[in-house]
């Protein structure tokens, strides 16, 4: 614990020293969508000797260099920690690696952008038998965006990454939505496992306009659903690590001033396998405290 705190302090000091550098605390850097999600922390220490303590954590600490070498290229040194003692197939994974993010903008009228998100990580599953839990994990994903407006009004409503409908419409009093999708490849070296990944995320913001007026918090209530389909492209029959993954989160969150991050409480449902954090096929509900912090050395 002391070592982790020392690393966090060390990251913060470095980030405040150099320009164009920031420290991010989130859920994971591997998944483009989850990168912007808050870290999950939950623990429950039991007084009763017959029941074990509960500990849930999905945390990623990243030290990010913006606009390095190439305009728009960001490079992050990432340390991730995924632990869950609450579920039947417990997990405890520590990871260390690099994340690279680069948008490729197509200079047409709608500014179509493809964003590349690549990762290379050393992963250590502490619950696996000796040697078997250590592996390299490599992944690369592509996510499309339209930054500009599309000539067709209907298509405009379907732009990934845009929150619709806008607040000039009556519908925005009831709900606003946003969706993102992408795909890529994942490779797990120890199992020689190549996995195809197609994913989508839908986020709903109920009563966002009213909440903005009442609390000055547009994202106070957030409902989020994630779908990932993984297909195994190797002869290695690790079917329990691929297949359909579905999760949703219903929660409340409070954004800290100056975009420094947020804190929240959420009911999560997870169903499926996630080979990137050694989570095999299972489904469960959990209530978690979430936090996202971002410390930047350059606020201009």
């Amino acid at each position: 614990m002391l070592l982790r705190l020392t690393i966090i302090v060390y990251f913060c000091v470095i980030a405040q020293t150099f320009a164009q550098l920031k420290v991010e605390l989130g859920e994971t850097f591997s998944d483009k969508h989850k990168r912007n999600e808050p870290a999950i922390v939950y623990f429950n220490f039991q007084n009763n000797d017959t029941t074990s303590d509960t500990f849930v954590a999905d945390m990623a600490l990243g030290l990010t260099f913006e606009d390095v070498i190439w305009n728009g290229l960001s490079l992050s040194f990432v340390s991730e920690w995924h632990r869950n003692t609450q579920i039947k197939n417990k997990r405890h994974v520590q990871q260390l690696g690099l994340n690279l993010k680069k948008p490729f903008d197509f200079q047409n009228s709608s500014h179509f952008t493809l964003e590349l998100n690549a990762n290379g990580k050393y992963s250590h599953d502490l619950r696996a038998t000796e040697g078997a839990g250590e592996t390299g994990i490599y992944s690369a994903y592509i996510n499309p965006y339209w930054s500009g407006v599309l000539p067709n009004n209907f298509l405009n409503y379907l732009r990934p990454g845009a929150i619709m409908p806008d607040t000039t419409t009556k519908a925005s009093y009831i709900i606003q939505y946003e969706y993102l999708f992408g795909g890529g490849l994942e490779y797990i070296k120890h199992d020689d496992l190549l996995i195809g990944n197609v994913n989508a995320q839908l986020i709903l913001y109920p009563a966002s306009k009213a909440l903005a007026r009442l609390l000055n918090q547009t994202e106070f209530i957030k409902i989020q659903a994630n779908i990932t389909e993984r297909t195994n492209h190797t002869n290695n029959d690790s079917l329990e690590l691929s297949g359909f993954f579905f999760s949703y989160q219903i929660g409340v969150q409070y954004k800290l001033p100056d975009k420094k991050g947020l804190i929240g409480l959420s009911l999560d449902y997870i169903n499926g396998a996630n080979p990137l954090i050694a989570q095999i096929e299972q489904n469960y509900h959990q209530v978690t405290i979430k936090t996202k912090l971002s410390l930047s050395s350059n606020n201009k």
Partner: protein
Amino acid sequence: MKIHFEIEANEAPLLINALDLALQSVNNPAHKASIQKIKSEVVSDINADQVIRNNVISAISHWTKVRPILTTSNLRFGLSLTKGFMQNHLHQLCNKILISISPNHKSKVSREGANKCETIQDIINIIQTNI
């Protein structure tokens, strides 16, 4: 001496009126010249603020179909500007305006700084801090 302070847009006419009253009540020509100089500085700042606001609203109008665009408009929830625009284009837009109104600006708007903007007023503020 350099004195820097911030007032709301609707308080600006009040400040001008107060300076006009001070000009009328002062007889000393040296004091009158000083107040006149302060007034011209304030008027210049007010005009600069309006120039930035007009530039920002005009530039943003190419990226959204939502009208009207107000200084209080939320960029993502109100104007439906995409995540891609916020992350990859907003800092470029800010820097173009910065160069056009102040060729000798002291610094550039960073990608991270622009991405933190939530309203049109935030964009105006971030440009002002870099002039």
